[in-house]
């Protein structure tokens, strides 16, 4: 018996729409972003400062304390350079995606670092947020366009 040519592809597109619920904890942080504020909260148990803060500490399970604004400054805890194009990409590579340790926080925030050549970014680089214009402010991390160096770095990247 001769079998037919195998079918190797068939299109079966799925379209599914969902509501995203940010939660009471994250909503505090997201509302702050819409006002150009990076809001943090402290766990009364372990004293760790979260930014963004959940409604309760995921270690101690205690409700985090009242929100307070951080300066927004911080330093690059670590980073990578995205070097290649892929579908759906918003930014032109190469660009730096960094884990930023905000001054006064014990968590890290992932964001872009720009206004510096990628090869000059290093761990420990002091950075500050660049906010979008008023009209673009939103309850989203996109309210921060990117982070930029506070002052010129010294020396080349070390890692």
């Amino acid at each position, binding site marked *: 018996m001769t079998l037919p040519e195998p079918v190797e592809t*068939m299109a079966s597109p799925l379209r*599914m729409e*969902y509501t995203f619920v940010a939660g009471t904890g994250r909503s505090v942080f997201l509302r702050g972003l819409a006002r150009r504020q990076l809001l943090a909260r402290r766990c009364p148990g372990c004293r760790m400062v979260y930014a963004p803060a959940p409604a*309760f500490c995921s270690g101690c*399970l205690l409700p985090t304390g009242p929100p307070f604004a951080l300066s927004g400054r911080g330093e690059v805890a670590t980073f990578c350079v995205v070097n290649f194009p892929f579908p759906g990409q918003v930014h032109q590579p190469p660009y730096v995606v960094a884990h930023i340790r905000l001054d006064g926080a014990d968590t890290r925030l992932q964001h872009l670092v720009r206004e510096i050549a990628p090869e000059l970014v290093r761990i420990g680089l002091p950075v500050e947020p660049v906010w979008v214009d008023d009209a673009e402010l939103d309850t989203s991390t996109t309210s921060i366009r990117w982070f930029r160096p506070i002052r010129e770095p010294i020396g080349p990247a070390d890692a």
Partner: protein
Amino acid sequence: MREVAVVSFAQSPCVPADREHDMAEILLPVLRRALDSCGLTRDEIGFVASGSHDFYEGRTFSSIESLDAVGAWPPIRQSHVEMDAAWAFAEAWTWLQTSKIKTSVVYAVGRSSLVSDLDQVLPAQLDPYLLAPLRPHRHALAGLQAAAMVDAGLTSERQMAEVVSRCLATAAANPNALRGGVRTGKENDAPFVASPLRAHDVAPPGDAAAVIVLAAGDAARRPTGRPAWVRGLDHRMETHYPGARDLTRSISVGLAAARAAEQAGFGAADVDVAELHTEYSHQEPLLVAALGLEKTVINPSGGPLAGHPATATGLIRIGEAARQIMDGTAERALAHATNGPALQHNLICLMAGEPR
């Protein structure tokens, strides 16, 4: 093997849509209540198991978010099934029987409300080449099953309406039910959603978290209350293809119930109360027949027809059945959980006030 018992069950009220809380925020208060009521702290919990499904959340790895409520720091022993959490319960029960671990938390954060249209989602459960492309709507296969039941004289629209009325009447006393109360009697004038199913025959989707605490051996014998000993548990799968099954009966329920009865030393027909995972009214007579539950109290909580937080619904059946034993109402109870189109996959859990 050690004897294992349910020592606590807690649930949040099933609401149509919780737009305020994330997974962890829904879970945390329920988890606290479950632990408080059996006098355990989270540090004493040896294993955490949960069940949920990304397709209800709309994002990958969604279950990770709920871990924030568990206190997975320092690290914990934890597992997760991408199914109804009744199967996480089975996993925890399995391990507790043989390990040094004494206690386990099993939880579900059921969120049916995030999906805008379940018709878009549920066909994805079907064979991706031959069935899913047909995109049957969410009730289509249940409708085929109900129609087959009616054709075979195994149920009627009237009996189905009575099932709904009875469930909703008892649900009026369940503070966690999404709907309940006396019916108008005109429900059978409503249009069909999938003939012979009408809107009232379908479990209303909602959001709720549920937590069960399991304990093994002496850890279950606490002064805080009467445990519900898990005497037998089994689950069985059927062929996927609805056309290859006799939809009017359930082979897998029979298999699972027989195996659970062997373990338990008593069978489904011997229980005082049964909580059945009936997402459609016609499935009650089907399950009652498969299990031989002629004289049993069925779904005193109101059952899924009073509220269906997907992936928590099965676990809640176990919790509600255990509650009947823990509060002394019942000596023996049965819980049933299901997944898949037209009851493809079924779990049976037999519990009693006394260990083996």
